[in-house]
């Protein structure tokens, strides 16, 4: 165990007497926590995985880099001191950021840390009391959280000590601790609620979707904040002017800070100060005392025999004969009979059903949509009327939408070859498939059909509605070019059989490069199209040429031989 873990473990075990009173076995608690912390050291947690997606740090530096990133995020929270007129407003925003960021982090880490299904077989059959087990999970989360929140609080401490002095810091510390506790139990309660309302099978899917929404929300907030800062109304907002805020927990912590820092004979502020202490403590007590036994029960069901029961009942139902005629319809249009069509349908279904795939691709698509929307918002004076008038501004908007929508597909293409269950791809290798390229082109086409096709159709409809029939040739040309760019990038890089390689190997590392090159090529082609925009005959001819070239490249992919495909697996 590293020194950080050792110190934190000692700290959380300090209230041992209190734990004992709750019926916790201290020796068990320490043993479980020690093992869990050793395990944390040896595998990346959710937060570190998140970073890993963006930049490829080796796992052993993860703790240091996690803390560094946490300091950066904590600095970002300081932006809230730019909003509003007084400290109570600043801090309400600060705690809102803090609580929601921590909650999003915890939701992802809870699935990997708290819902370690192996605990059901390893710890639960042992003579460990429910209270000990639940407390070990909570303290584990707490230690885990401390490794992130301590560095995250440093910027605010520095800021406050310079700006207001040490009294402000002293008032801040208990509040940030209470806010942290509150967040932990908030998430715990949400988990218990979801477990109560739904089947364990659906549970992880719901959590995944919440994570995806959070990730996109933060990305949008991150992008929007600088824009809002220049808004005069926002800059002078006073949070106490609206009583609705009284129900928001971040306001309690903010009011609590205010009262601790600068005591006022205000009954209202004193109530909120009391709330900021009582609520986290009470929720801690409720979770351990009442929810713990039921929670364990439900947890053991996640892998329990309900799975068997559920499959049995499904088997009893009449089978749906034609589950996705839409995908089959698309497959008939876009693919050749045989291996390519099979590759298409297989990839289509896997992309819709694999949680792992969705967790990686949907947030990336969300980011791209945020970027595309903001990009268009950022263009000064851009408006729908420009698109309708087809002036220079309108043309640029059309081209931006066309070429940036291509980015949506990149992460899907990068992920489609990767899977935790990559070993199941043996079926492709033992089956007598003559040219594996067919499977690959089928998979690439499935990505395009599932992610790009709806966007392209929507773009065509919206732009035609705004700009009239005259934009159609240009839109089609843009779509053809995007297909060509995608096809070429797939020809060069995407390349293994669908869902056949382990995740986090070198295959994913070219992601950033791919985004940049697609953007650069897209911008270049878009700029060329700008000059040819009004010469419809040329656009039509070029559309045919570009479409033909795309078809040609797809054909090239479908002709990949086994020798070429095997070579892709050897270097990883």
């Amino acid at each position, binding site marked *: 165990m590293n020194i950080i873990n050792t110190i934190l473990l000692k700290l959380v075990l300090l209230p041992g007497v209190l734990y004992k009173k709750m019926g916790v076995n201290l*020796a*068990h608690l*320490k*043993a*479980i926590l*020690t*093992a869990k912390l*050793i*395990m944390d050291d*040896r*595998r990346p947690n959710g937060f570190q995985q998140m970073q890993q997606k963006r930049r490829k740090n080796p796992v052993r530096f993860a703790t240091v880099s996690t803390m560094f990133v946490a300091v950066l995020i904590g600095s970002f929270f300081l932006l809230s001191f730019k909003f509003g007129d007084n400290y109570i407003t600043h801090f309400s925003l600060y705690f809102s950021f803090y609580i929601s960021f921590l909650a999003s982090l915890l939701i992802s880490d809870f699935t990997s840390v708290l819902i370690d299904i*192996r605990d*059901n*077989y*390893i*710890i*639960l*059959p*042992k*003579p*460990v*009391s429910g209270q000990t087990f639940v407390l070990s999970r909570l303290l584990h989360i707490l230690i885990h959280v401390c490794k992130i929140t301590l560095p995250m609080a440093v910027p605010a401490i520095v800021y406050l000590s310079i700006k207001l002095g040490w009294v402000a810091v002293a008032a801040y510390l208990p509040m940030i601790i209470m806010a942290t506790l509150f967040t932990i139990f908030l998430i715990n309660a949400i988990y218990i609620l979801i477990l109560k309302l739904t089947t364990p099978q659906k549970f992880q899917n719901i959590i995944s979707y919440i994570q995806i929404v959070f990730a996109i929300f933060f990305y949008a907030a991150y992008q929007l904040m600088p824009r809002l800062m220049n808004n005069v109304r926002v800059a002078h907002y006073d949070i106490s002017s609206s009583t609705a805020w009284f129900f928001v927990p971040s306001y309690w912590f903010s009011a609590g800070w205010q009262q601790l820092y600068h005591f006022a004979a205000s009954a209202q502020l004193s109530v909120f100060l009391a709330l900021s202490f009582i609520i986290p403590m009470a929720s801690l007590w409720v979770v351990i005392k009442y929810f713990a036994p039921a929670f364990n*029960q439900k947890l*053991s069901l996640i892998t*329990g*025999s*309900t799975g*068997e*029961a559920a499959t*049995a*009942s499904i088997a009893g139902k009449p089978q749906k004969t034609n589950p996705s005629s839409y995908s089959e319809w698309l497959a008939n249009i876009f693919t050749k009979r045989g291996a390519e069509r099979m590759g298409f349908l297989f990839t289509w279904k896997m992309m819709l059903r694999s949680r792992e795939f969705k967790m990686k691709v949907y947030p990336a698509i969300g980011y791209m949509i945020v970027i595309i929307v903001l990009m268009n918002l950022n263009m000064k004076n851009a408006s729908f009327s420009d698109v309708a008038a087809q002036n220079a501004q309108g043309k640029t908007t059309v081209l931006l939408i066309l070429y940036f929508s291509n980015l949506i597909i990149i992460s899907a293409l990068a992920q489609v070859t990767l899977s935790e269950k990559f070993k199941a791809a043996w079926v492709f290798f033992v089956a007598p498939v003559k040219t594996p390229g067919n499977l690959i082109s089928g998979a690439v086409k499935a990505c395009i059909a599932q992610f790009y096709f709806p966007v392209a159709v929507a773009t065509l409809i919206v732009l035609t509605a705004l700009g009239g029939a005259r934009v159609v040739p240009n839109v089609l040309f843009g779509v053809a070019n995007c297909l060509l760019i995608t096809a070429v990038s797939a020809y060069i890089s995407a390349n293994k059989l669908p869902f056949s390689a382990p995740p986090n190997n070198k295959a994913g590392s070219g992601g950033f490069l791919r985004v940049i090159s697609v953007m650069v090529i897209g911008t270049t082609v878009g700029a060329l199209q700008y000059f040819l925009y009004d010469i419809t005959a040329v656009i039509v001819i070029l559309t045919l040429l570009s479409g033909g070239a795309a078809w040609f490249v797809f054909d090239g992919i479908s002709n990949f031989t086994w020798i070429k495909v095997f070579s892709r697996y050897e270097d990883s």
Partner: protein
Amino acid sequence: MGNPIISIKNLWKSYGSKAVLKGIDLDIYPGQVIGYIGPNGAGKSTTVKILCGLISDYEGQVFVKGLNLKDNALAVKSTIGYIPELAELYDVLTPVEFLTLMAELYNLDKHIALERMAKMLAAFGLQANINDRMDTFSKGMKQKVLITSGLLHNPDIIILDEPLSGLDANSVIIIKELISKLAKEGKTIFYCSHMMDVVEKVSDRIVLINEGTVIANGSFEELQQQQGNESLEKIFAHLTAKESLSDAADQLMSAFD
């Protein structure tokens, strides 16, 4: 025979509206090796989970060493060594780290535990690997660590769920020998498996369940007397298969026509 060490009385368990166990009655005596067999979905693993305290919302009564499982879950758990079917363990830990955790949870003295685990792992031929992370281990090596973890605290009752999966032929012999030696020491073994030939050889008593009820209960010889002088595999098929199995094979073959 004395008092039963495990006594199950009218045990019912349902998942939603689906009853998995429908009134199991079973008395198990110290030193017995029970072969607990049944087709998939018969309720074997549900019984095991109840005995191990993983499921507590069952109906009926379960007594272990005279203690009601519902009221004394922790005391019961300490007398049981459970070796689960899947090689579920924290594989980023080393065997020593993992087993130290197990020993701690069973309130075992650390020095005794270290000595025992060293001896047991050495007996399995793992002495060179005791400080390697288990994520590099083969399925059989993991299974050996798992077996060690179930036996470390010297439990009176040992529940084995398909313990031979992934083990090579030599290790299988070791485990079979071990089971009979443990039984001679007075340990009670609860052995769940689909491998009829092994169950036939190691068990003193065979309990066959189907659709949540016990349909046969006795020594292999007793079963043979009731069902005709046949192998356990054949007896199992007679009692649990709804249709003739050779018909099923015929149907499989006819799919080619």
